[in-house]
C-alpha cells in the first residue's frame, strides 16, 4: 500500500503574526517557517503504518516556492521514502492545490492520501475535501484514530458533538487531527540520511492546471484590540466586579 502525504510550509505556530503596515498581508520576511502542525501528524501516521508493515512506500509532497523543499526534506527525515515538490510561485488557493495534487495522484496512484485537516496560515480547511471530490474518492476528515482493515479504513473523526466512526474503502483521503498521534522528532542521523533521499521537482505550469487565484485579497487588518483589563486581588473582589460592574452574573 502506497501513501502520499501532502505537507505545507507555513509560519511557525509559535510566531506572533504581524500585519504589514500597508495592509497588503502579513509579515513573512525573516519569520520562522515550519511544517503545518497537523501535516506532521499525517506524516507520522503514514510512517507508523509503514513500520507496522501495512504500507510499503510513503511519498511526501509539497506545493509552493522552492523553499518548500525544506518541508519535504523534513518529512523525509522522519521516515518518508521520497519526495515531490510542485514548484509554484504566488498565492495558491486550496482549489488550485487540490487540482495539482489530483494530477500527481493520477500519476503516482497511491492507495491513500493523508494531510493535515487545516493549514494554520489561511485556516481554510478545504484541500483534502476538494481533492477527494475531484477524485470521487471517500474522505475521512478530522481523523483522530485510523484502523487499517483489508480494503478499507475505519476512522474515528472529531466532530462538534463528539466522535464519529466511519468506514471508507481504499483508495481514500484522510485529513488528520492533532490528536491522531504524537509526531516524532527527526534524529541527526536520519536528517543526514534524508539529504540523500530523492525529491522530484515538477513545475506547476507543466501540469496543465490553471492556478490563478479566484479570490482577490483586498486588504489585511489587525484584529480589534481588547481594552486592557485589571487585576483583582481576591475572589470576593472578582465576584463583586462581575456582579456590579460587568453585570454578567
Amino acid at each position: 500500500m502506497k501513501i502520499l502525504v501532502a505537507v505545507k510550509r507555513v509560519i511557525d505556530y509559535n510566531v506572533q503574526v504581524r500585519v504589514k503596515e500597508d495592509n497588503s498581508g502579513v509579515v513573512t520576511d525573516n519569520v520562522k517557517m515550519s511544517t503545518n502542525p497537523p501535516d506532521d501528524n499525517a506524516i507520522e501516521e503514514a510512517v507508523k503504518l509503514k513500520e507496522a508493515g501495512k504500507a510499503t512506500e510513503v511519498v511526501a509532497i509539497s506545493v509552493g516556492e522552492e523553499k518548500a523543499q525544506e518541508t519535504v526534506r523534513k518529512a523525509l527525515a522522519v521516515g518518508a521514502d521520497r519526495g515531490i515538490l510542485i514548484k509554484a510561485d504566488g498565492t495558491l488557493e486550496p482549489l488550485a492545490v487540490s487540482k495539482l495534487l489530483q494530477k500527481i495522484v493520477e500519476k503516482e496512484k497511491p492507495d491513500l492520501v493523508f494531510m493535515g485537516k487545516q493549514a494554520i496560515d489561511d485556516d481554510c480547511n478545504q484541500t483534502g475535501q476538494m481533492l477527494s471530490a475531484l477524485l470521487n474518492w471517500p474522505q475521512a476528515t478530522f481523523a483522530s484514530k485510523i484502523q487499517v482493515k483489508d480494503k478499507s479504513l475505519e476512522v474515528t473523526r472529531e466532530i462538534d458533538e463528539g466522535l464519529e466512526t466511519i468506514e471508507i474503502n481504499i483508495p481514500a483521503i484522510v485529513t488528520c487531527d492533532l490528536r491522531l498521534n504524537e509526531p516524532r522528532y527527526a534524529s541527526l542521523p536520519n536528517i543526514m540520511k534524508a539529504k540523500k533521499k530523492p525529491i522530484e521537482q515538477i513545475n506547476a505550469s507543466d501540469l496543465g492546471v490553471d492556478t490563478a487565484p479566484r479570490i482577490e485579497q483586498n486588504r489585511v487588518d489587525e484584529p480589534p484590540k481588547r481594552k486592557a483589563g485589571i487585576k483583582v486581588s481576591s475572589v470576593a473582589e472578582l465576584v463583586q466586579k462581575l456582579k456590579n460592574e460587568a453585570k454578567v452574573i
Partner: protein
Amino acid sequence: MSVLLVAEHNNKELKPFTFNAITAASQVDSDVHAVIIGSNCEEAAKALSNLPLVKKVIQVEGDHYENFVAENFAPVIVKLAENYSHIISSANTFGKNLMPRVAAVLDTSQISDVTKIISADTFLRPIYAGNAFATVKSKDPKKCVTIRPTSFDPCESSGGSAPIEKAEPSAEFGQTKFIKREEVKSDRPELGTARVVVSGGRGMQSGDNFKLITSLADKLNAAIGASRAAVDAGYISNDHQVGQTGKVVVPDLYIAVGISGAIQHLAGMKESKVIVAINKDGEAPIFSVADYGLEADLFEALPQFLEELNKLNTIQK
C-alpha cells in the same frame, strides 16, 4: 439570484447554527432558499419553513441521508446549485466537511469561516488564528461560503410559512459507510451558544480536578470548555475544545482557569464579551486579553468562587 442555505439537522430538529447561517445568508440576498437533506426529516423541514427569513424549503429524502455523509450530500447540492448565486452553510464540522466537496465540483474557490458579509462578493474572514482579518473578493460566478456561526445572530425561529418543495435524491456513494456517532449528552447549554463558558486548561492537572470546573459551571448555568492541552492530556473529551482547531465561542462571560493562553486558544475565545482569567502565573498571556485577572492558585480560588456565588441573592441564568 437567490441564495441556497444548507441546513444542518438531525431529521427531527434543526441544529442551532443553522439559524446563524440563515441570518448570514439573508445579508447576501433576501431570497433565501434552504435545502434539507435527510431521512424522514419532515419535522425538521417544517421547522425550517417556519423561519421568516426562509422563502422556500427544498426537502430531499433518502435512506442514505439518515446520517450526514458529505459524499452523499454534496451531489444533491451541486445539482441544485445551478439556480443559485451563493451556497452557504456554517463553518462548523458539518459545513467544513461538506462545502469544499461542493465547491471543487463547481470549480469555485471557497471562502471559509466568514465573519462579516461586506457585499455579495466581498467578505471578511480571520486568518492566522484570528491574528489578522482579510477582506476578500470572490471573482467566481458562483460562490461557496461557510460562515462563522458565532459572528451572526440566530434568526427568528417562528412566524414564517415557506412552501416545502421536494427534490430528487442523488444515488448513494457506496464507498463510505457511517458506523456510529458517540455524542456526549448533557443538560448543560451547548458550548457554541452558551451565555457563560467556564474552561479549564493544563493547570487543572487531572480529569478528576475538572469537577471544580463542573461545580462552578453548574452554579452559573455555564457550558464547559477546555484548552487543547487539557483535551490532549485526556482530562476531558474533544467536543469541549475551544481554539483555532476546536470551537469558537463568544459568550457574555468566559472564565479561563489554569489556561496559559496560547495563540491557538485565544483564537477561539478572545471575542467573548467579558473574559476572566484565573492563573497562578502572573505573566501568562491569558491576562493580556482578560478584563478581570486573578493571580491565584486555582485549587484555592475555585472553592472560594463557589462560596462567594453562594452569598449572592441571585445569579443570572
